């Protein structure tokens, strides 16, 4: 640790003006990377939640028919579903409840009796049951004309596809951030090598090994990365909290809050360390490769 934080005694890299702003750049990169990680893990959690909820929950829709006895149809369907192996519960959704669901679209004063609203039954599938939904749908349609099993699958598939696409995008952004960080570090190191060429030559001529010189560079640049990464991460976490607060206060249910979970939190906390290690490895390779060109 002391070696890691030790100053570059002979090269005095600390006094280089060219690397002064590197922590600021690293900070911005870490900020973006942390937000990407936040988005990536939040989406992953959200997709799991959607899948879990929607594969356990089904809806049976009985089409509106002004001449049919809808209450009987609902009762028949509930009875059939309740007796189906693998169905945990089947509950008819009351008309008031349906009205409540439609309230955002139709308003509070809508009269349910005037509208051709289908009747709904909420079905919960038992855990670990292997139920054939297509067969159930067919059986239900035969027993109760106008009844249809809505398995939410197409909608869920689209949502999962969208979520996965955004996850790939976030991963791509992270890769891009990593590449840009490496390129910036390479430029900074090469500038440092040129600026300190004379001192490096003296060190070589009095018997310094390439490792001795490389260590001064890698320790200094890793320290700069860490100094930039920590504030970048802190700002990103603050931004995530603000985002969650806004999402909560707006009651915008379509926007999931940024909940990274334990894996995401670990990934975020490891981010500065990973950047420092990436910097250290990059700097070491660049310096050793450059020094090999010298006698």
């Amino acid at each position, binding site marked *: 640790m002391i070696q890691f934080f030790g100053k570059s005694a*002979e090269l005095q890299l600390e006094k280089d003006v060219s690397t002064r702003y590197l922590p600021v750049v690293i900070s911005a990169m870490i900020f973006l990377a942390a937000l990407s990680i936040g988005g990536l893990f939040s989406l992953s959690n959200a997709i799991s939640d959607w899948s879990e909820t929607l594969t356990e929950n089904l809806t049976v829709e009985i089409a509106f028919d002004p001449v049919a006895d809808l209450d009987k149809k609902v009762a028949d369907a509930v009875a059939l579903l309740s007796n189906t192996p693998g169905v945990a519960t089947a509950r008819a959704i009351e008309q008031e409840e349906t009205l409540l669901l439609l309230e955002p679209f139709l308003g509070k004063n809508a009269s349910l009796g005037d509208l051709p609203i289908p009747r709904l039954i909420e079905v919960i599938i038992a855990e670990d049951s292997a139920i054939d939904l297509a067969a159930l749908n067919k059986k239900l349609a035969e027993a109760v004309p106008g009844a249809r099993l809505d398995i939410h699958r197409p909608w869920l598939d689209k949502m999962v596809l969208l979520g996965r696409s955004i996850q790939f995008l976030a991963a791509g952004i992270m890769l891009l951030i990593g590449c840009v960080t490496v390129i910036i570090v390479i430029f900074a190191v090469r500038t440092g090598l040129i600026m300190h060429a004379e*001192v490096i*030559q*003296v*060190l*070589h*001529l*009095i018997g310094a090994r390439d490792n001795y010189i490389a260590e001064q560079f890698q320790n200094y640049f890793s320290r700069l990365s860490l100094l930039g990464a920590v504030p970048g991460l802190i700002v990103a976490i603050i931004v995530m909290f603000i985002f969650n607060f806004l999402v909560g206060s707006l009651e915008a249910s379509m926007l999931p809050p940024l909940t990274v979970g334990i894996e995401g939190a670990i990934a975020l906390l490891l981010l500065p360390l990973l950047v420092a290690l990436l910097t250290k490895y990059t700097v070491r390779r660049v310096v050793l490769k450059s020094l090999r060109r010298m006698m």
Partner: protein
Amino acid sequence: MVRFENVGMRYGLGPEVLRDINFHLRPGSFHFLTGPTGAGKSSLLKLLALSHRPSRGLVTLFNKEVSTLSREDLPGMRRKIGVVYQDFRLLDHLSTLENVALPLKIAGAKNDQVYQHVAELLEWVGLGRQVDAKPPTLSGGEKQRVAIARAVINRPQLLIADEPTGSMDAEMGLRLMYLFQELNKIGTTVVVATHDLELIKRFGNPVMILKDGMLTTRAQDELPSQFSKDPA
């Protein structure tokens, strides 16, 4: 110790600055290297200091042919060589003590031993009161003494000095030449490059003369009284 066989050297694609150099330095010998400005003295010293490789020919140092050395072998070889550069090449941000201690530190010596040795040597070269001074605050002669102290702190087997007394008064110059002689007596091979023919005559060691990139060895009584100012 040191053997040059048909050695030539050029910088990049430029003309040869050293041509067909042949000589052999026995362990514990003391040689002067002299010649007019631009004759190639510094280039020859660069080959000796393992700072450059020859363009052709064989350079053998410490019984190892330089062109066969791997990169990992070079630091160990360089630690056996002490070099006093004409332009000192001190690290301006380090103190006198730290500059002189650098070869020992790089070689991995323990701190307490390092600083005791360095303090004693600095005292000997007359810089005992300037251990904490940084090179920019030192005079030319003082910088040269720091450079010499740095070159000899490691007890090198080969000591190379490029105009080591050029920036100091005659008395200090002589004192440092005596230091080189002391090191030579304990087995260090010494090569001193200088324009100062009076100094060469005073010490009476063998002289290698470089002119137009070619090396000749002459006895003391064959030395010219002065070199032509025109390097050609």
